[in-house]
């Protein structure tokens, strides 16, 4: 494992991950297990881990509705957590 570190920000807070990890992996490794709220306001994070459930949506570099489990994290990514209303 090359362990090349990368840095991303989540709602302005800096987090460190390893190149090749998904955005979900970086968030979970940092102890964040939820980052989205449903219409009723319930928190959600990762469920299926492979892009099928859409529970892990967040905003990456101003693009909303990105599945955190499918998107490789890139150095400098700016992540925003999102609620469902924000984009409908």
């Amino acid at each position, binding site marked *: 494992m090359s362990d090349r570190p990368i840095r991303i920000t989540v709602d302005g807070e800096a987090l460190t991950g390893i190149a*090749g990890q998904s955005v979900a992996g970086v968030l979970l490794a940092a102890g964040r297990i939820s980052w989205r709220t449903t219409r009723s306001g319930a928190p959600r994070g*990762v*469920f299926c881990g492979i892009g099928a459930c859409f529970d892990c949506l967040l905003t990456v570099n101003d693009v909303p509705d990105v599945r955190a489990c499918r*998107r490789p994290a890139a150095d400098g990514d700016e992540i925003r957590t999102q609620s469902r209303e924000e984009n409908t």
Partner: protein
Amino acid sequence: MSRHVVIVGAGPAGLAAVEHALRAGARVTVLDQAESPGGQYHRRPPGADAARHGRSDFDRRRRLLAHPRCRWWPGAAVWAFDRVENRLHVLRGQPDGSGRRRLTLVPDALILATGAHDRTLPFPGWELPGVYTAGAAQALAKGERVAIGGRVLVAGAGPFLLPVAESLLDVGAEVVAVLEANPFTTVRKGWSARPWRLAAQAGKAGELGRYAATLARHRVPYRFGRAVIEARGADSVREVVTAGVRADWSIIPGTERTYEVDAVCVGHGFVPQPELAVAAGCVLDGGFVKVDGEQRTTVDGVFAAGEITGIGGAVTSAAEGAVAGRAAAGEKPAPALIRARDRALTFAGRLASAHPIGTAWRSWLREDTIVCRCEETTYGELVRATTDPARPGPHALKLGTRAGLGPCQGRMCGPAVSELCGGTERHHRPIAQPIRLGELAARTEGEPG
């Protein structure tokens, strides 16, 4: 010019298909939405160059992606198949990103090897953060070296729970128990009927033995006839309730037990991802793509292999891929390949009979238990809707309760909703992968040279 075989999915099935289509002389394009080949099985942490399991076959097949007659497109999501024009629609670029490239391919033969995702039955609290599918726990541990929690309970049905527990231990999680809902008698009967037929999969038996030893070494109990029936916590899981269940998975009163955990992963087998096959017009059988002895679907020129045709693990998937690769390239698959595939299918049959889904799982549900995670439709709402004479039929039911109409389009709740409402699951998702409106409006680029 030789036949152009297009293969969607570079998991065990797709990669075996690549190898055999090349051997039969075809030109091959293989694409996968992931950045690296291997699918769900051959996963490895960032930077690691060798997969842990099935290494030699995988390494040989992965090298073939650089073959002069092979074109490999990673990061390529296939979002539609137009059966009238025989045209496959592909988006290349960052997953769910903007500005992806739109491309199309017109294959001489198409092999669909899009695999499966976990099936998780609903139970009270399964929507809480900290509840994961078994596959998610596996993908994060094996592919990213991330543990989903410190104290984890692993539960559900099927032998897949064992490698999941092993991977969790590998990344430093404490696994409090592994629970198989089926009783030991069901599991034993399923696996040991006509044991000589299993000899072909002797490697599998060794693998299971290794998992059992790992669990014993870490003092992780592996229990039969127990299930997770509830997850509790305010904003995330704090504890899970398990109970002893009968062979039909009904709860045995008085056997409840509570564990304090910060994560739980649950898997009740797998469901296929047949969207593209449905778009192509292929007939399904029990949700799986129907194929003949040479992996042909019911649509001319379209083949299917791997877990979209039935759940049988990586070895079975690869055996099917090999047959599909030869046949799609226009060659008759050698009898040895067919025999290997048929032996592997026996294993798949065993898996299904040793780890069935008990019909009484619905007795775990309560009025307010969420069944559709996206739309937060509850069990109570579904039951009321099915008994409402003004809403006959699955379509009206969906519109009335919104079950299955959220972003996942019923991928998670589909089998449960159809079981609870007494219908068959409808796999009607015209778009296999999400596409942004801007991308849809953009001019289509032709097939690149």
